[in-house]
């Protein structure tokens, strides 16, 4: 913090008069390379090379890692014609849509309310809303598969008592209810996580702007539109993009909630589950790479469109 103000000139003076030049010329030059090399080696082998390799593999049909046959664009042709892939893409899009539409307003609303000074117990409330995020998706999946069970499940008991919904509502075996169940579970899991980002953003908005707006006679709604929203735009975009990207990678939650399956009528089949089934259950690593690239390009395009729309991309560079 303080070095933003004071550090620069002092550092320049120090490097101008310091004994650095000439004393350890060799180690000086080699040091940064030495420090990044453990990372660079691992990163090159297990990060960069697999990306290049997946570009090649996408044009091969493979049977496990042992046999590989060049098939050109056949993987992509098959992929785009496969009704299961269409189902997976549709489900993933539906999940992503509802995640964004529910998560962001809920998270922002909670953050705004929890940012009010007059609200008692704010620390406790923040912790309460954030706490589900400490649970890994697998544990949440196992927990909710019991909570959503017909007859005994807590959700059905509660809904039965409150609004008279039948006790045997089959959240996880009725194809029409599988996606709502997954969306609700993920809302419970992630809303507090996004709330933290919005809280941090709200606290960074300049207080004087609110005072100025109030002097100009702006009511709460006008203040929200004129001060809050522009102030949190970069963070809101960040939350929007990461929520979307995360939604496209949905796998563990439905997989464990639906006892290691895609659910009835593939109602819980997602793109990553489709990739996993084809690549690692069936064993076609080439086909899985083709699915991976299709996913990657889809995610990139959607993120770019989102950044364009919210105006963060062209405006104030990061």
């Amino acid at each position: 913090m303080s070095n933003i103000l004071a550090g620069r000139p002092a550092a320049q003076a120090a490097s101008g008069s310091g004994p650095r030049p000439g004393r350890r010329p060799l180690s000086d030059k080699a040091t940064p390379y030495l420090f990044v090399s453990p990372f660079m080696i691992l990163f090159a082998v297990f990060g960069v090379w697999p990306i290049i390799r997946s570009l090649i593999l996408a044009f091969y049909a493979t049977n496990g890692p042992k046999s590989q046959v060049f098939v050109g664009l056949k993987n992509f042709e098959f992929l785009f014609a496969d009704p299961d892939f269409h189902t997976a893409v549709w489900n993933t899009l539906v999940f992503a849509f509802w995640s964004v539409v529910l998560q962001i307003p809920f998270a922002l609303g909670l953050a705004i309310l929890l940012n009010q000074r007059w609200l008692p117990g704010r620390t406790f409330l923040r912790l309460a809303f954030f706490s589900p995020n400490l649970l890994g998706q697998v544990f949440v999946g196992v927990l909710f598969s019991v909570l959503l069970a017909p007859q005994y499940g807590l959700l059905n008991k509660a809904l039965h008592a409150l609004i008279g919904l039948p006790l045997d509502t089959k959240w996880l075996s009725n194809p029409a209810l599988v996606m709502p169940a997954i969306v609700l579970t993920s809302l419970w899991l992630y809303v507090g996580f996004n709330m933290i980002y919005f809280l941090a953003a709200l606290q960074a908005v300049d207080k004087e702007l609110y005072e100025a707006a109030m002097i100009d006679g702006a009511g709460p709604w006008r203040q929200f539109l004129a001060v809050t929203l522009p102030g949190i735009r970069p963070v809101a975009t960040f939350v929007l993009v990461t929520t979307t990207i995360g939604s496209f990678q949905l796998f563990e939650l439905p997989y464990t909630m639906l006892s290691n399956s895609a659910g009835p009528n593939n109602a819980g089949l997602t793109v990553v589950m489709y990739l996993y089934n084809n690549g690692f259950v069936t064993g076609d690593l080439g086909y899985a790479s083709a699915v991976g690239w299709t996913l990657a390009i889809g995610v990139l395009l959607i993120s770019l469109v989102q950044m364009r729309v919210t105006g963060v991309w062209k405006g104030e560079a990061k």
Partner: protein
Amino acid sequence: MNSQSVQLGRTAIIILMVTAALIVLTPLVWLVAATLKSSDDMFHYTFFPPLSRFTLSQYHDLFTKSPFARYLVNSVFVTSVSVMAQLFFSSLAGFALAKYEFKGKNVIVGIMLATLLLPGQLTMAPQYDLLYHMKMVDSYAGLIVPGAVSVFGIFLFRQSIQQIPDELLQAARIDGCSEFQIYWDIVMPVSRPMIGAFCLISFMGAWNSFLWPQIILHHAELFTLPIGLNQLVSLYQTQYGMLMAGTLLGVLPVVLLFVLLQKEFVAGLTAGAVKG
């Protein structure tokens, strides 16, 4: 405005928020309760049974009838090695990128940023292929080594280390510190809050990791807790109490670590986003 109506609105909001918080906490309370009931009482009492009917039999079953203890030990081992490796590699590289000028630096940063844009699932198939040929499939090496570097961690450390004043490092150089000593004795101690945040984030990632262990580990004795627990779900489908005990124990380490590190955690989480 009329202060009475403001007061009324505020009270309504307080009631709403408390209700919402209670709803969010309910599944967790139910989870704790489920692990303390006998199987007969499981659905007889919605939450906690009378005090006299509390029992630890579900935990007893979990450890005596299932290989849960094995999964727990495996997860503790894999997670601690992963976190330490990630911490070391990320902070060292982050230090170099923050405090040295060298040829190729911008290229490295550019490549790292580019890979952040691609979803991790893209590289699962080629990584599996690579590890198969390196004979690292079905081993902890195959689990830990590819994940030892965290690009996210490097950016986190680069950003926090940039805040350390140059003259502090310069003074240490004049005192005769080697560059590695500067990293170890000055940069790391000063970065303690960021280390706390990173450890928690990296711990959560490794501890909860499911898909990659599921792909790379074949033998049940190597299973980590998430894939082991998922296995138990299909084996003991109706033993809810036992499964919930496993779930609670799977969640508890993260909760404890979070309680210890929550201040650092929130700071680390939002460091990139708010400045960005």
